[in-house]
């Protein structure tokens, strides 16, 4: 179905329009991006072209690769509108003005192919209003697809259809957004603000107006609203700065205009003098010179400052110090019950938001699951509102609402003495408005480890890893250690797993559902061993890791690694030793060991050398491959997408990219099964390396950077050891180097580096601060 969209036209090249166009291009599809004619100048496509040029410079990057930008063809509405006939989906992202949108729709109706889906990215105008006066043929193909900013990174897409919308066509668009654009499609009713913004604006407005009234500082408010509720640490004020303060009055006014007089939003939507003052003095948020928070660079130093809500003046940031908050920890009920300002603020803002969320069923969505998903993915909440209510306890929550004369929504009544979610027969269920529990249904083809874990027990398990049967003869190896850091327990379980798959299964997938695949080896262990001079143990740790990686690589069954998020250091080495990688598009992979004064010791050097030296696109001779690998590893380069990882040859030709995080395990499993028939383990590589001559050139490169002040004193030492490994030690260009030889070099250099005080200082600093030490 998704295959029926082969080209997309995006009309409107603002931040959202160009972002949506970029994401379509990231998916590998051609895009026609149109905007109005420029006010002046000869280039009639200047507006759209300017937007693409800006997007290429934006950080975080809307494009996953520079190549993706080439898939966007820019044009203008006056000359090129007829070309929408080439496209299978038209996304309208123009000004939020009904007259402008409808004028465009009338023009589109003349030139588009009938049956081509048209959607609006409106965030405020109801679908029925947009359709007013439009012909039936238009209404049949029309829907709202509401993306979140930035479209590449925000996984939510709200879909609104009307009674006249062709549901089969809507399904095609939904499938495309799911599989190609990687979005979680939440079906919403045609109600103001749909789900996420309706609730998010309520929450933020409440939080901003309550803070001065209760008498908290903005740091205190953000501390209460952040971690305890699983809300990103930007809290509310930080988030407002990120979104743009200038949007707040506009969004609130349009929300107020669209909602019925009886809606509770009107009671919290009060005047916000502090926002007004900030806007008057030009503070629009992070895109400008700051908002509630700013970085004061005067006086040569960078000082983070925040607005004092009493005086309206900036002052140095004051970290929140709230004993009541500390006492409550992550216990939300305790937080709601906390004495004084803390409890009052938590309840007045989040308590009321949760009550408001409950009223959105069925007004904005049929089920609570849609609302939870929208808040998780649209506002990056760790838990949706109903998950939060479950944590508080439905009965306690309802009792408090009653005590305060706050209206209790029907879904809350139905949940009396129950929870909104439960696990029954190994399946997650949610409570419906009918008072019954229903199985949580994933979109077709989605396979989640989270679900598999509810349904059964692991096949194998220890303190750092678990192995799950994901069906059809495929096992899934899951890291479970803190931050998925790699340790000897993981290696021990991997050994058992390899034996087990050999005996009883067909293939192995390495996958987990943490925010990061793995940020690498547990270097705390290495530091500890070094501090007690347990060198033999360190060497054993390296040797075991190398041995396991080789076993993984040469196992008699297919191994597929499926990373998402960061795959660094040892995490990246897992990818490099798998038969294939099925990566989530947002995978950030790289060998970063040099940053802490070490080098890849589990075969990372060996695998990268093998790939670059044998890459047919590289110039011939012993130097180009090792030089390229040296550049990447010595600078601890991390790819900024799966597409980037492919450029770095961490992904290879046959490796796949999954755009939708939810579909990663299913895709990885399918890839593994595809490799089963006629599977032959890889042959060990033998390569030619430059030897000591090559090391001279690598050393010289580092020395040059050191002279420039880019490389540090210890970088020269680390680079020198890396050069030994990557040049093949004492090899000669008429000899071939075996994998085993490179592994020995890795091990020796790793140990030599670990014995340097500067490396130990780097590791210690990283463990303490999370930041690299540049010594």
């Amino acid at each position, binding site marked *: 179905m998704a295959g029926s969209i082969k080209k997309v036209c995006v009309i409107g090249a603002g931040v959202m329009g160009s972002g949506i166009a970029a994401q379509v291009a990231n998916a590998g599809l051609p895009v026609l991006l149109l905007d109005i004619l420029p006010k002046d100048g000869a280039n009639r496509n200047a507006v759209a072209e300017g937007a693409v040029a800006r997007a290429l410079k934006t950080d975080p990057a809307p494009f996953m690769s520079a190549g993706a930008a080439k898939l966007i063809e820019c044009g203008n509405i006056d000359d090129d509108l007829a070309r929408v006939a080439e496209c299978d989906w038209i996304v309208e992202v123009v000004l939020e003005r009904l007259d402008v949108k409808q004028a465009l729709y009338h023009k589109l109706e003349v030139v588009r192919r009938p049956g081509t889906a048209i959607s609006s990215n409106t965030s405020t105008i109801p679908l029925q209003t947009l359709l007013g006066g439009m012909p039936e043929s238009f209404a049949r193909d029309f829907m709202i697809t509401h993306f979140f900013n930035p479209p590449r990174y925000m996984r939510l897409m709200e879909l609104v259809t009307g009674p006249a919308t062709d549901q089969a066509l809507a399904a095609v668009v939904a499938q495309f957004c799911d599989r190609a654009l990687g979005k979680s499609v939440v079906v919403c009713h045609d109600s103001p603000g749909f789900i996420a913004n309706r609730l998010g604006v309520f929450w933020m407005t409440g939080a901003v107006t309550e803070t001065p009234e209760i008498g908290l500082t903005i740091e205190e408010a953000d501390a209460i609203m952040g971690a305890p509720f699983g809300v990103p640490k930007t809290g509310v004020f930080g988030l407002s700065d990120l979104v743009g303060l200038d949007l707040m009055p506009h969004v609130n006014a349009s929300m107020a205009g669209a909602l019925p007089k009886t809606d509770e939003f009107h009671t919290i939507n009060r005047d916000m003098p502090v926002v007004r003052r900030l806007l008057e003095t030009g503070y629009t948020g992070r895109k400008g010179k700051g908002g509630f928070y700013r970085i004061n660079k005067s006086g040569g130093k960078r000082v983070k400052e925040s607005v004092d809500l009493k005086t309206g003046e900036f002052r140095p940031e004051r970290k929140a110090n709230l004993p009541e908050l500390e006492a409550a920890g992550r216990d939300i009920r305790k937080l709601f019950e906390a004495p004084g300002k803390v409890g009052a603020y938590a309840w007045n803002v989040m308590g009321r938001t949760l009550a408001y969320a409950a009223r959105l069923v069925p007004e904005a969505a049929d089920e609570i699951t849609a609302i939870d998903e929208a808040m998780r993915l649209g506002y990056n909440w760790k838990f949706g509102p109903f998950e939060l209510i479950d944590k508080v306890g439905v009965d306690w929550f309802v009792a408090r609402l009653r005590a305060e004369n706050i209206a209790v929504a029907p879904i809350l009544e139905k949940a009396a003495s129950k929870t909104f979610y439960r696990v029954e027969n190994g399946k997650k269920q949610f409570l419906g408005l009918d008072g019954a529990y229903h199985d949580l249904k994933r979109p077709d083809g989605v396979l989640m480890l989270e679900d598999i874990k509810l349904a059964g027990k692991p096949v194998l398990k220890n303190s750092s890893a678990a192995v799950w049967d994901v069906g059809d003869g495929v096992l899934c190896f899951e890291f479970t250690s803190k931050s998925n850091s790699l340790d000897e327990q993981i290696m021990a379980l991997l050994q058992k797993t390899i034996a087990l798959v050999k005996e009883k299964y067909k293939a192995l997938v390495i996958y987990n559902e943490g925010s990061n695949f793995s940020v690498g080896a547990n270097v705390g262990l290495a530091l500890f061993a070094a501090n007690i001079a347990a060198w033999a143990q360190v060497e054993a740790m390296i040797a075991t890791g190398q041995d396991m990686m080789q076993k993984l690589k040469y196992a008699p069954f297919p191994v597929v690694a499926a990373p998402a998020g960061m795959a660094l250091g040892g995490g990246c080495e897992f990818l490099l030793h798998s038969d294939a990688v099925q990566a989530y598009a947002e995978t950030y992979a790289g060998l970063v060991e040099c940053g802490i004064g070490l080098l890849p010791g589990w075969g990372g050097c060996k695998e990268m050398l093998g790939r670059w030296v044998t890459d047919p696109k590289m*110039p011939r*001779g012993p*130097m180009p491959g090792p030089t390229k690998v040296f550049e990447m590893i010595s600078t601890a380069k991390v790819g900024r997408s799966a597409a980037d990882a492919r450029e770095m040859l961490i992904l290879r030709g046959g490796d796949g990219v999954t755009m939708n995080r939810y579909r990663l395990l299913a895709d990885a499993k399918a890839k593994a099964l595809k490799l089963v028939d006629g599977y032959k383990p890889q042959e060990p590589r033998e390569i030619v390396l*430059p030897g000591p*001559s*090559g090391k*001279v050139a690598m050393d*010289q490169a580092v020395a*040059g950077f050191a002279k*420039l002040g880019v490389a540090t004193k210890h970088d020269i030492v680390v680079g020198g050891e890396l050069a030994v490994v990557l040049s093949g030690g004492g090899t000669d260009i008429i000899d071939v180097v075996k994998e085993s030889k490179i592994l020995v070099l890795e091990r020796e250099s790793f140990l030599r580096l670990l014995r340097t005080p500067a490396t130990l200082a780097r590791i210690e600093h990283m463990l303490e601060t999370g930041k690299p030490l540049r010594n």
Partner: protein
Amino acid sequence: MVNVVIAGYARSPFTLARKGALARVRPDDLAAEVVRGLIEKTGVKPEDIEDIIMGCAFPEGEQGMNVARLIGLLADLPLSVGGCTVNRFCGSSMQSVHMAAGQIRLGAGDVFIAAGVESMSRIPMGGYNPLFNPVLAKKSPGAYMGMGETAENVARRWQITRDAQEEFAVKSQKKAASAQAAGKFKDEIVPIHAKAGVIDSDGCIRGDTTKETLAGLKLAFDQEGTVTAGTSSPLTDGASAVLVCSEEYADKHGLKKLARIKSVGVAGVEPEIMGIGPVRSSRKALDRAGLKGTDMDVVELNEAFASQSLASMSEIGFREETVNIDGGAIALGHPLGATGARIVGKAASLLAREGGKYAIATQCIGGGQGIATVLERI
């Protein structure tokens, strides 16, 4: 004795490596078009040409495989014309001129094309496989030293301040820009026909550069140094060629003689201060001609870096107003292998254009060498 003359000079536009208009042009195609252009411009009979001597600093990849011969074939020269590639790094195509002159005096031919080419976009500086001798690297660190570092060494040793370097660079840019505006490069540039269209003008020149903009640039090689990208020649793509023949041949066939080659010189210096190479080599050539630096009316001194240019100028004693009248490599660019033939051809043309009696073209060479050619007005 047989007199040897420069009887024609042509070059491609010089454009920035990787960013410029020639980045996507193969160096062999580029040089072939310049050679063809030189032949058409001079009217020399192709069948009379003995040999193409092509200078190239990194003769590999698309400029490898004895590219001189391939360029002859690409340029549809008669099959009887030979082709030989020579490498003396930045001095490569000045070496081509010297070899041609030597051959003519030896009686080993009457007409030669002495040319040079370098695509710094397409072939990395240092080549694809820099395999340095570890023993030599220890024994003589300057042997493989980066050029920027040598420029810093010269700046330190001769106490050339950043300010002086920047003043020199701005002047070079202004001279090049006004020469370009006055159309003074038109008759030396051969338009190049690339897939993307015709490329017929230089791309490196920044006429609006000021001392203020240069003062704001970051140091390029050494955080405690003085050299920036603005006081260095940019990485450049380009090709150049001169027609070298006996005076008798030129007269007989009515070729336009630009200048007579009076003397040449080449000399080694400490690798760590290679930029000072012009001094010893120029002195050798001048001595052989019985002349002094101050006798020169036209000087083409390759501006690899402002620091080495200034140090060399003062050591040799050139008069400032004679040096790089139409701007130098800091403005025009320095496609390594192509520079030597450009500055010989340019010095000869300037001598014809500006008048005066003597000209010199000289340059420094990585690894610690210099090369020089003294010309005489006919």
